[in-house]
């Protein structure tokens, strides 16, 4: 392990693993940092626009504490990530919520994290109810309602109906029950289109297209001598819309399997494999967008010049979809956008050198993002 900086060789990563996962730090210098690596020994953090340069710096994860003065929240988050089973978007998100819940990023962030963690817990249950109802609706003649599922006689009835469905599939009741459990657990990470409780991934997808439109509208207000602002807005809009398009496709794939439960269950191994892969991809595609959406929401009530500067920050945060993770038909479009992004990322300004004190106002703004609704 080295403690020196290195610049990323390729600006456009090939895989999600190479791109890394956004770590929602509250130390301003590290705010757009992404972690990547197979394990703690090889883990690195990628920092765009650091040290007055346009490149992306790569720093060993373990050196972060020595090289930067971090907020207490970030020191706790660093510890929590070191203990995480892997560096996937889900695990980083859970670590971040658990740390924010402690109150180290302020009361609003703590309250929001508590609510989101509770929601995560309930989503699996909601997904299980929803899937069960959908299976019964499509594969049995006897109806079952959500209200019934909440009662003991209703559950008994559900058991009887599901036993019948299991027999029709050539399975035991326990086998079907276990598969519904696994299916619910898998899809609950991104939610389903018609589920009564909206998962974070669905909320994000629903925000992406309007966000792209907002950037376009904002860009229209730029004058001829503000070409940088207009270009940033255009790029942010293009990436938001393309990400929305891609995420929508994956989300629809997941929804389709649920709409045809008989077919999905008959082809169980294939369904599970495809669903897991799609959920995994969707979570990686959406990683980092929560921060982008909230940053722009925060900018919405600031004067235009501040919005322009916050847009530069948005550009620094824009998550790109890696080349090999894209369908070949989208690679040309993304190649153009990534090329523009490489030119448009500007160095972090106003934060001084790497190890000096933390910008207090900027830290408070980043903490507010954690408490802000999506």
């Amino acid at each position, binding site marked *: 392990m080295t403690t020196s900086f290195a610049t990323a060789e390729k600006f456009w990563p090939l895989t999600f693993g190479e791109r890394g996962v956004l770590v929602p730090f509250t130390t301003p210098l590290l705010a757009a940092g992404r972690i990547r690596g197979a394990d703690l020994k090889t883990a690195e953090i990628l920092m765009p626009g650091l040290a007055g340069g346009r490149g992306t710096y790569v720093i060993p994860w373990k050196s972060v504490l020595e090289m930067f*003065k*971090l*907020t*207490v929240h970030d*020191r*706790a988050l660093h510890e929590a990530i070191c203990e995480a089973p892997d560096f996937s978007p889900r695990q980083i998100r859970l670590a971040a919520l658990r740390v924010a819940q*402690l*109150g*180290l990023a*302020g*009361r609003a962030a703590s*309250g929001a994290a508590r609510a989101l963690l509770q929601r995560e817990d309930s989503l699996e249950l909601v997904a299980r109810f929803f899937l069960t109802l959908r299976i019964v609706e499509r594969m049995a003649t006897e109806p079952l309602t959500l209200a019934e599922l909440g009662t003991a006689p209703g559950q008994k009835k559900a058991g009887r109906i599901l036993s019948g469905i299991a027999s029709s599939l050539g399975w035991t009741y326990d086998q079907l029950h276990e598969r519904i459990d696994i299916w619910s657990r898998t899809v609950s990470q991104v939610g389903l289109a018609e589920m009564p409780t909206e998962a974070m991934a669905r909320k994000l997808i629903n925000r992406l297209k309007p966000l792209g439109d907002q950037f376009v509208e904002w860009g229209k*207000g730029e*004058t001829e*001598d503000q070409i940088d602002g207009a270009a940033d807005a255009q790029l942010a809009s293009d990436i938001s819309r393309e990400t929305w398009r891609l995420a929508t496709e994956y989300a629809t794939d997941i929804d389709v399997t649920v709409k045809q439960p008989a077919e999905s269950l008959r082809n169980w191994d294939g369904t599970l494999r495809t669903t897991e892969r799609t959920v995994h991809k969707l979570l990686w595609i959406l990683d980092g967008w929560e921060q982008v959406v909230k940053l722009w929401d925060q900018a*919405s*009530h*600031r*004067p*235009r*010049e*501040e919005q322009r500067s916050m847009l530069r920050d948005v550009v620094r945060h824009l998550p790109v979809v890696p080349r090999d993770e894209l369908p070949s038909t989208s690679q040309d479009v993304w190649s153009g956008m990534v090329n523009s992004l490489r030119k448009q990322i500007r160095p972090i300004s106003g934060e001084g050198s790497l190890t000096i*004190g*933390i910008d*207090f106002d900027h830290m*408070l703004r980043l903490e507010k993002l954690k408490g802000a609704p999506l």
Partner: protein
Amino acid sequence: MTGAEENLAELEGKLFEIPEAKFVQLVQFLEKNLERGGDTTPLRLLLSKMRPRIVQVRPPRRNTVKRQLCRPFEELLYNTKSLVPVEGRIPRTAIDAVYNLYEEEGDKGQIAAIEQDLVVLPVDDPRCDAIATKIWAQGAVNLRSLMVRSARDSMSKRDLIDKLKGEHIYKALGDIVEILEIADIVHSMRKQLPPRPIQTVSTGVIKVIGEHMDKATKFAPRKAETLLLVAMACLERPWEIMEALEKLALEQKKIVDPALSALAVRALVTGAEQQLETMRLDLDGNEVKPDSEFLARQIADLARTMLGAKSAVQSSGQGKGLDRQLERARRTLRDMVHVNILNGADKSILANVMAGGSFVTGATGLGGWDQPPDESKLKEAEQRAIALRLCARYAEELGLGGEAEEKLSTLQEQLTGLTGGMIESLHGRYMSSKQRGSVEAHLFASVRLVELLAGPDVANDLRLKGIASLEA
């Protein structure tokens, strides 16, 4: 405090949390109801609370003759409860009074016809400009003639002042007429300038201001002063107008017109005084006090304005009178910081963080840490700590020397000491999971406050000690 007052205070605090689309709908709904007549006071009060966000969001407003009449001077408008006139500013309370005069002096049928034409157009539609030019010209001629008539004898003047309900509105009427007389020039300048508030006084901005001041001077020599006041109101840091004036004079190989620089510094000083007075009246008059962080940010903004005004006064070489005015304002602001932020901050923060129990006693020996902390009190303690940190930044300029720093350091020591004591008492102690949850919540709340007061290093030491003690 009534329920309505509580709701208004709550709205003020959450103004920027309302989604933009909803906010726009709300403004349109309120404005539509204003047109219905009857007692509109509550609606107007509500809209005044929403104004800071309206200024930023700029939702499509109802297009009326009144709104068009006010366009040339909208940057000069301000909310105040004070009756003292401010140089270069127009109290919002003058709008209705002056508009009533405009209607009385004008042709009612023609005004109604114009209103009909406007209502179908957005406020900033280019077609409005031609209509607005007529409104401004009529307003300038009719209102000027009224002022000339009223100035002929003291009785007429008194009648007009009574009608307008105060000398300050009468003064505002004069200022409005001055602006309406060059409204086309003002409007052209506003159109060419970047969106307000202008953050950077660039060469382009200076050029636009300079060209329009020349046009105004050609109309009448004193009109450049009127235009200067409008230009200053468009700037985020109005004191930067002094530098702009110097650059303009240098370009024209002249010296800065002393009348202009005198007016600019007078406007800066009285503007700072007005900001201070408004804040004071708000603090004294409202039953619901703003949270400490919000107040500290307002004070920081005012301290910055005063500093800007001071440097402008010094660079202009204007008389000592303005210096004394500024010094008085600075002392008032210092007292305000004392009363509202520094005094009792230590007791308030400690009391709030300890809410739920005392640090030193308690039947379980956990000094109340086994009871969950009070969320709202913790929030208050955090806001106070943030206010203290913000206050320390401008303490020097306000003559508070190291007082804020000292307060921060004493408080941090007290909090660290008390928390450290509790951590010691946790060592090796059996706790139920509920008790442990409460203890952790208290520990992290203290750590957070220490970080806000003294930075992350001391706070993190405390966190690590606490965790070690809990795990022992």
